[in-house]
């Protein structure tokens, strides 16, 4: 103890102790990941993943390479039970929604000739109770959608 007393006479007291330096930082939590693949059937809505807890989203990607167009695929991204993205894939592409500072979900690859698609989740969104992602297939196709999500739970 800085004042010469044994520690058991006094607990931690920032005002009392002559600390030369105090390091203060937020508690970020422990890193976690979801690395999965979901079979999406014709005209079905599938939940890709759900996370219950508090934390922060580091980022993520969702990619798929069906044998036919998924131009009209629809993403439903919820944080704390609130829908923050409910958008068709073509909208993200046609309007150039590529900047993660402007939108929670962005298009990274939209190849409607070879049917390769990739979408990204923006960094830094915090959640107090949950977040989840759903995909609605509306083109009558069946394929596997892969997702790689990184986040922290506090």
């Amino acid at each position: 103890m800085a004042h010469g007393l044994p520690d058991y006479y006094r607990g931690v007291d920032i005002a009392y102790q002559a600390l030369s330096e105090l390091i203060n930082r937020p508690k970020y939590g422990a890193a976690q990941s979801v690395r999965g693949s979901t079979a999406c059937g014709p005209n079905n809505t599938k939940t890709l993943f759900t996370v219950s807890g508090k934390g922060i989203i580091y980022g993520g990607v969702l990619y798929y390479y069906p044998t036919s167009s998924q131009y009209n695929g629809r993403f439903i991204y919820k944080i704390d039970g609130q829908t923050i993205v409910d958008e068709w894939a073509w909208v993200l592409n046609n309007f150039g929604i590529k900047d993660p500072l402007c939108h929670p979900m962005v298009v990274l690859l939209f190849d409607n000739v070879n049917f390769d698609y990739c979408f990204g989740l923006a960094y830094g969104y915090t959640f107090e109770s949950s977040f989840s992602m759903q995909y609605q297939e509306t083109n009558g196709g069946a394929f596997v959608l892969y997702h790689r999500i990184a986040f922290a739970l506090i």
Partner: protein
Amino acid sequence: MVELRGIIQYYDDGQKHVKLVIRREHSDIYETHELGLDISVNKGRILAELARLETAGPVRLIWPHHIKAEDMEGVKENDKDIKVG
């Protein structure tokens, strides 16, 4: 003491994965445990797993209010009658 910090559910290779993230007393190290494959999530099942993970002394579990034991596909018919005491 075992404190639940999160429930993670997702599909991979056609199987549903359920993971629990926990913290133990006086520890900032978080542990991730696989609850099982292709099982539905409900509070009773998670409490049983948390109790199993408590290895020291009497069982003391902390379940924060913000964490909900909801299955990613909604409530299954077989789980509706499970009572949590």
